[in-house]
């Protein structure tokens, strides 16, 4: 019994959230990557990014505050070494992307659309420290939709586009609607919440602290857009959490922070929810 996420077929509804699965090599010690619904890569940009200064990640009660600054090797080295390694492990690879211009987004889409083994592209429209870290400002749903349209145009037909939007209750329905209209096959709700490091640097807040908020956002999007394919993301740590997101109308879930605490989380969830589907399905 597999899952259809706007044309992306998943063996189970558990995905590794962007930026929380390393290169895939590290996680492979704790889970066979092909056992997961999908592996979303850290956000890849056209050119390499060194990332921000330390400290990059701090604990708060029930959450992590982070400003990694989208450190990544850039598209070329990613295609040369990271992607083939993920594909070889049998992962359903979803490549997360961000750009500084619409042209960069188009270029990323063109190149990834031709790369063997890419199952889908996830456009990161919601990086909480994005503006400070120099990617295109897409906080307005209209701008986000422009990016989605530019990426959609360049992707081969049949390669699904996931749009990851902010878990901002006031605008999340509008964001979801516009990106779906612009060509997204599914909407990921959502990302880390905009926050700050103690020294004031822009950062994101993730983990159990944001779970109720993310759940509310999923509920709102489901109510307003009954046909949308939704991926729930934010603070999911155990089977009960994942089930509450699925019950609220998510087709799949992404797990981030919980994986940093316990690298076996994704494997356990995938197993629990796979069996479940088989029994019901």
């Amino acid at each position, binding site marked *: 019994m597999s899952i259809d996420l706007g044309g992306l077929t998943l063996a189970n509804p558990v995905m590794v959230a962007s930026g929380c699965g390393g290169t895939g090599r590290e996680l492979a010690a704790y889970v066979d990557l092909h056992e997961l619904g999908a592996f979303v890569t*850290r956000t890849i940009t056209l050119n390499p990014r060194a990332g921000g200064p*330390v400290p990059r990640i701090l604990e708060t009660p029930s959450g992590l505050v982070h400003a990694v600054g989208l450190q990544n090797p850039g598209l070329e080295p990613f295609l040369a070494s990271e992607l083939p390694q993920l594909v070889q492990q049998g992962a359903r690879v979803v490549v997360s992307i961000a750009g500084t211009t619409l042209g960069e987004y188009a270029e990323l889409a063109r190149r990834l659309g031709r790369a063997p083994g890419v199952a889908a592209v996830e456009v990161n429209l919601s990086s909480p420290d994005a503006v400070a870290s120099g990617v295109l400002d897409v906080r307005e749903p209209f701008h986000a939709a422009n990016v989605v349209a530019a990426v959609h145009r360049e992707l081969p037909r049949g390669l699904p586009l996931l749009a990851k939007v902010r878990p901002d209750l006031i605008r999340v329905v509008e964001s979801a609607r516009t990106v779906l209209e612009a060509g997204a096959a599914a909407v990921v709700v959502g990302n880390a919440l905009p926050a700050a490091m103690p020294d004031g640097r822009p950062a994101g807040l993730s*983990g159990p602290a944001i779970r109720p908020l993310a759940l509310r956002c999923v509920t709102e999007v489901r109510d307003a857009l009954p046909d949308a394919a939704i991926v729930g993301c934010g603070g999911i740590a155990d089977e009960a959490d994942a089930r509450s997101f699925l019950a609220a109308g998510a087709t799949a879930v992404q797990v981030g922070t919980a994986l940093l*605490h316990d690298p076996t989380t994704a494997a356990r969830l995938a197993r629990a929810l796979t069996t479940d589907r088989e029994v019901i399905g």
Partner: protein
Amino acid sequence: MSPVAEPTTATRTPLHVTGELLATKKVGAYRHLTLVAPGVPERFRPGNFVAVSIGAPGSDTTRLARRAFWIHQVKPVGGYGPTLQLVVEPTGPGSQWLASLAPGARLEVTGPLGRPFALPKEPVSCLLVGEGYAAAPLFPLAERLRERGCAVNLLVAGADEAHLLSALEARRSARAVTVVTRDGSVGLRGEVADVVDDVLGRSQAAVVYAAGPLATLHAVAVAAEAHGAWSQTAVEQPLTCATGLCQGCPVPVVGEDGVARRVRACADGPVLRGDRVRWAELLGEAGEPR
């Protein structure tokens, strides 16, 4: 050609297990913990560490970030097989919680993690420099080096006697032991940086291994370079996941290809070649050297 054989990271995969605290003992300023963590000791190589969850397994109060501890020894304990020994300095909430645990407590443990010390291909003279709790991984390294016929010289440092890892134990596996304390309570008075040049000269070491605060590692790397020795430095950075997933622990280095980049302390390190680390940037980034 490097005289050390670089270990590959991927050969021994880490495990995530529920372990049990078998014994706990106060030694000076530290707590020595003996842990049962099935499968982890068997995979250990000197320079590896474990990540421990702070908070009882399954409780709601666990901290999200893991805490890393050097594996100090792997010792068989009757009825349990090989166990792990950790040296914990109670400083903040995580280490204090660990130090306060009673035998029988259960712990989430991931390991062994990280790139271990590279061993020399030939039986050469080696200098091992350890400061505070960070001297912990050097003791099993010393044993491994001795087995290979290397002459082992030790330089053990600490703030005072209480923060010195047992030099007595060290004497068993070393040819020469130098002790330095900041307050002069044992051995020479001063810092590693004050004496490393001299010790290195006397030991004629071809390879220097170091574990300790960043400033100490830097001093060792500089001294090694001056003496034409290879250095292997065990770099501690604040870790969140400790498993290579989050990119929260960057160390600025110059790669094999001569290109400057940032690697992960936990997964690409913690042991890195001293001549590859961009120390000025690392020390600046990490704020005041500890």
